[in-house]
């Protein structure tokens, strides 16, 4: 009973891209941190979740979506900065496992803090009035807000690219992710750079949370599945590679969306199979440096 018309296919594709946009954002945050600090942030999903809650909370407080779109991620970023300074930093040089495990514990804490503050059922979140309704794309109606998601991601990726390519800080970060020695030679305090990058990464996680909030149920556990999925994206794209994060993010979104069309029940499994395949054929991922395997 498969009835796939071209327009349905197109619609499914756009849906996949919108979905992929969120994955890409998440993966960018994760990749920034890994590329620079070689820390796998297991609390990334939790930061995403916190972002979603704060987004909804500030929206209720200020009544202004755009304002909450700015404030909430910044607050998440601050939490990130604190976490790096007092929890992750003491672990540098203790082996790559320790920060990973610590952030795993941190995610547990963040989830329960949110439960305590906002309740276990989660918060009602609805699309901001200015972005409601569906747009006719010629091949079918598509929710305006999801188009906005795609747009917002594009803008953010562009901004980030400019920041990394055109600014001095960007230069330092790019250099640092290749070899922290270089940065030391440049006379920059590497630990400060790491600190800020961790903050930036978590801010982006928070932002993706705020953006995703209107499209899903905002509850304390929403980050758990998201974490696994953004791992898939970063690994497929190549740990620490930003272009990889974007490409893989969109790919995973599309793969999910297409499997959802052809074999809905296998949609979730499909992305893990994709990851397993990529890792076997090209363990370092699309854009990953083979060296990272050592």
């Amino acid at each position, binding site marked *: *009973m498969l*009835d796939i*018309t071209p*327009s*349905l296919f197109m*619609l*499914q594709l756009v*849906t*996949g891209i*919108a*979905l992929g946009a969120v994955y890409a954002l998440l993966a960018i945050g994760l990749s920034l941190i890994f590329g620079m600090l070689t820390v796998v942030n297991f609390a990334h999903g939790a930061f995403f979740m916190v972002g979603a809650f704060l987004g909804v909370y500030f929206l209720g407080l200020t009544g202004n979506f755009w304002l909450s779109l700015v404030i909430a991620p910044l607050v998440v970023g601050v939490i990130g900065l604190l976490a790096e300074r007092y929890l992750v930093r003491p672990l540098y040089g203790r082996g790559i496992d320790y920060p990973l495990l610590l952030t795993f514990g941190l995610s547990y804490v963040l989830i329960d803090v949110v439960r305590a503050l906002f*309740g*276990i*059922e*989660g*918060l*009602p*979140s*609805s*699309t901001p009035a200015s972005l*409601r*309704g*569906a747009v006719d794309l010629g091949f*079918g*109606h*598509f*929710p305006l*807000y*999801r188009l906005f998601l795609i747009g917002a991601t594009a803008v953010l990726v562009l901004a980030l690219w400019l920041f990394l390519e055109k600014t001095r800080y960007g230069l330092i970060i790019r250099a640092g992710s290749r070899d922290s020695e270089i940065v030391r030679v440049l006379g920059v305090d590497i630990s400060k750079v790491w600190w800020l990058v961790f903050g930036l990464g978590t801010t982006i996680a928070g932002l993706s949370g705020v953006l995703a909030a209107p*499209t*899903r*149920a905002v*509850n304390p*556990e*929403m980050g758990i*599945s*998201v974490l696994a999925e953004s791992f898939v994206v970063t690994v497929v794209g190549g740990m620490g590679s930003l272009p990889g994060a974007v490409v893989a993010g969109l790919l995973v979104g599309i793969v*999910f*969306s297409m499997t*959802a*069309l052809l074999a*809905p*029940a296998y*949609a*979730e*499994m499909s992305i893990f199979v994709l990851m397993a395949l990529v890792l076997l054929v090209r363990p370092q991922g699309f854009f990953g440096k083979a060296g990272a395997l050592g």
Partner: protein
Amino acid sequence: MNHQDSKNATAANRRQLLQLGAAGAALGTAPFLFNIASAQTATIKIGFPVPLTGAFSAEAQDQVRAAEIAIKEFNDAGGFNGRKAELLVRDDKLNPGEAATRTLELIEKDKVDFIVGSLSAATQLSINAVTRERKVIFNSISQSDAINEAKDWSPYTFHEALNPHMTAGAVARYAFPKFGKRVVYLTADYAYGHEMVRGFERAGKTLGATTLADIRHPIGAADYSSFLPRIQALKPDVLVMCNFGRDLVNSVKQATDFGLKEKTRIITPVLLYTARQSAGADAFEGVVGGTSYYWGIEDSVPAAKAFNDKFRKAHGGAVPSDYGALGYAGIRSVLQGVLNAKSTDSLKVSAAMGQLKYNWYKGDQYFRKCDHQSVQSVIIVESQSKGMKDKNDVFKVVGMENPNEANLRSCTELGHKA
């Protein structure tokens, strides 16, 4: 004192002896010792495993509140020749493994006489797996078709809640004639979801409804958008969301975004009071679904009025939720069974409960002989977003299907010797 009790008593003595030895041997572990199970007490102990943490904690807490009312009533009325009832609440974390362990704790350590509780198909089935082996009565207060089937059922198994088949059937019988016959299902891909679809299609066949597609989504999926274009393309009259709790909130919200409500009516077998509260009015605007209980029926059902008032009195004016009310009924049925059987012996109580004709809170009910399914009414409600009296006034009662065994799957179909 029944066989179970005496066995436990001797077990307890044996433990205490061994403990003396243990105490000596285990230096430094002394602090553990105070935990050792105490001897028998006269109270009637009812274990109450529910997910106090996890996605349905709101419902679970409501179940406990309501259950406490039932216990208090029983004790105020003098209990069972002086023996008072006691509620032992445990958190099963919505995790079947944890539920099984907690049930073992309740039976082996706390020596409970009965178990009432659970808030998911999976946990109730794992609780049931433990209780039936140990010949302890378990009255389940959450939905599942499987628990009635001979494979899982035992004489000690009771099902106070609705089951998917009844609920789905009732909603179908209300909605299909009204909203149209071309139906698409968006189904959470697990037993509960499949059971719901089966219920709808069974009822739909007689009503001449046609299934355009049954789209299965992974349970707990965060994003449903990728399932929706297909549904849009099919242009159904009715979209049935065969999922529960957060999945329902998510999928309805996203379906609304995709503008599905313009041409299609969204219905769902179980419209949760708490889910509606947490998702907000917009998302559920105009959604029709079934429920085992809604406080609003008190205008037409005296028992409901009485129950609501008790609940309001005990909990500062709050009204009971659907699953909360089941906590109350579940306890009352068991304790009534004790009174009628004049014993706490599992078999005797089971027999007495089988005889019950009761009206605790929503009108007349009774347990069907073959599978101990509580035959009861199903209430059809529609979520409303305007003209609400207060924050509790979220649903409009649009229909009620009276208790009728004909709406259940037959005993033989379930594998019972009718």
